[in-house]
């Protein structure tokens, strides 16, 4: 009997013939924390009897959520994190490096790895065929110390995507559509596996956007096969030797299959205050926006910067809109400068932030005022998410966000493209 990608990876890492529903103890290949979960994780680690890392080379600390720090307390948390890195010799990615999930994709994740991070969007690395999932501080502290964790092997929902995205439509619209379809708890405890002819040719930056939001349907992991796209992505990053192919078996057992026709998708928007509260952009009516935010681990990649740049080039954003753009990593930031993308965005009226999580979680760099509307390319629109429970957050693609910055209202990008 064949296996899903989850069953294959967890069998390999636990040393048993793992099937959906089994409880396994799995080796962990990479463990990481960020600056808002790291201090508690380090304290949990230090309250354990064994206070050495299983692998300092495969333990990473990221300063990205409050970067650079907006407050004395967070600056002190950063000191605490840096001291732990110095004590243990583990990897440290300090302020300015970028969002943990983007750095993990660029530098650390390998197909077939088991990755646990003290951040729910750890699922992002599923795009590269890694069993990557978010956990809390206690679990991550134990994984740091023992180099292993326990899992219930998830059942898998297969998402079969066929056809081609039409102009103005892309990965973000697909994942918003899917979350709207199955709900914010539609995949709780489950794995999502993406397959189909649209996936075969889907570039890594789109796969990363989709896997990133698997958690917004409750999923444990959002997996893509490790294929020629993964191989080329790793090769381009100078990490080609980390590649191995991973495909689901043809006779693997799926809990169910959901078919999505890419051609039929339209630009999607998630309305406040849940990610599954979706609709098609053109049906929204007249929603004026105060702030447009393009960035984050969902849509802060080079291709997002390119898309925003091409829409905004030689134009001016609407007078009532603040446009905040944040490349997800130093590499993306640098490449966006070289390509002229940031210049186009700045000349259109945009504000460029240093690589990091920026305003996504409401700490700084774009906190909303009362009743203000933000159209964001991030992954969450929960009440209070951007620092104010009276703020209203809509989620959409980079194309929809950049277009809306020009018009001042949430706009289907096909009106302009």
């Amino acid at each position: 009997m064949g296996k899903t990608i989850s069953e294959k990876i967890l069998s390999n890492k636990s040393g048993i013939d793992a099937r959906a529903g089994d409880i396994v103890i799995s080796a962990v290949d990479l463990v990481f924390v960020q600056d808002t979960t790291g201090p508690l994780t380090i304290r949990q680690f230090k309250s354990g009897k064994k206070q050495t890392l299983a692998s300092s080379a495969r333990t990473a600390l990221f300063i990205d959520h409050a970067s650079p720090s907006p407050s004395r307390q967070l600056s002190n948390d950063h000191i605490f994190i840096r001291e732990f890195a110095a004590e243990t010799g583990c990897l440290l990615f300090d302020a300015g490096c970028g969002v943990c999930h983007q750095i993990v994709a660029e530098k650390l994740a390998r197909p077939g790895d088991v990755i646990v991070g003290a951040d729910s969007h750890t699922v992002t690395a599923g795009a590269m065929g890694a069993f990557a999932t978010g956990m809390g501080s206690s679990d991550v502290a134990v994984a740091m110390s023992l180099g292993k964790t326990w899992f219930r092997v998830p059942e898998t929902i297969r998402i079969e995507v066929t056809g081609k995205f039409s102009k103005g439509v892309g990965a973000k619209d697909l994942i918003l559509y899917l979350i709207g379809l199955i709900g914010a708890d539609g995949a709780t405890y489950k794995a999502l596996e993406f397959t189909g002819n649209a996936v075969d040719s889907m570039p890594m930056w789109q796969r990363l956007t989709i896997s990133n939001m698997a958690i917004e349907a409750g999923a444990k992991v959002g997996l893509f096969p490790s294929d020629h796209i993964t191989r080329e992505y790793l090769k381009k990053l100078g990490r080609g030797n980390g590649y191995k192919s991973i495909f689901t078996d043809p006779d693997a057992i799926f809990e169910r299959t959901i078919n999505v026709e890419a051609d039929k998708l339209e630009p999607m928007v998630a309305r406040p205050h849940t990610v599954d509260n979706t609709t098609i952009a053109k049906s929204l009516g007249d929603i004026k926006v105060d702030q447009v935010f393009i960035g984050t681990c969902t849509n802060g990649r080079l291709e997002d910067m390119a898309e925003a740049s091409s829409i905004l080039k030689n134009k001016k954003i609407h007078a009532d809109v603040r446009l905040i753009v944040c490349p997800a990593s130093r590499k993306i930031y640098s490449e966006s400068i070289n390509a002229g993308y940031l210049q186009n965005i700045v000349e259109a009226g945009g504000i460029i932030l240093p690589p990091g999580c920026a305003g996504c979680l409401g700490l700084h760099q774009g906190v909303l005022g009362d009743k203000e509307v933000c159209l964001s390319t991030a992954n969450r629109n929960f009440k209070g998410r951007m620092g104010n429970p009276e703020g209203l957050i809509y989620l959409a693609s980079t194309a929809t966000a950049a277009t809306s910055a020009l018009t001042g209202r949430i706009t289907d990008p096909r009106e302009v493209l």
Partner: protein
Amino acid sequence: MGATILKGRVFKFGDDISTDLIIAGKYAHLRSNLPELAKHAMEDANPDFIKLVKPGDFIVAGSNFGLGSSREHAPLVIKMAGVSAILAKSFARIFFRNAINQGMPALICPTDKIADGDNLEISLDEGIIRNITRNESYSFTRIPAAMLSILNEGGLIPYINKHGDLKL
């Protein structure tokens, strides 16, 4: 947990209570000062919660409680507020695991008949929730054995310190 009977009053919440509603990201600067952080527990869902909650009380919610972030501070501030168990129709995966890892019972049960202010008595061993106010009883879904062994030790770190390893 021995023959523990949990007793307290209900604070009722709806569906999809996110970790941002439980403890907002904007308070991340207080995460190394847990007593201060805990003063903001459930703030954006019920601003009066922290003023009214008493040791032993229960949080009772609808479906998908704790969706969103992996912040373990979410069950931690609920525990620090004195809550003795969280009851919901369903939990988000990471929150459920975090609650057990903090030694906080997270019980899956039907919650529609339980109202704000009801008095409950919960026997974790018997798997019974008694609604004293309404003279009703409900059962909850058994906590998986692997997680029960962690809960019974008071959380994951105490479990590992006692057993030295994961032995599920």
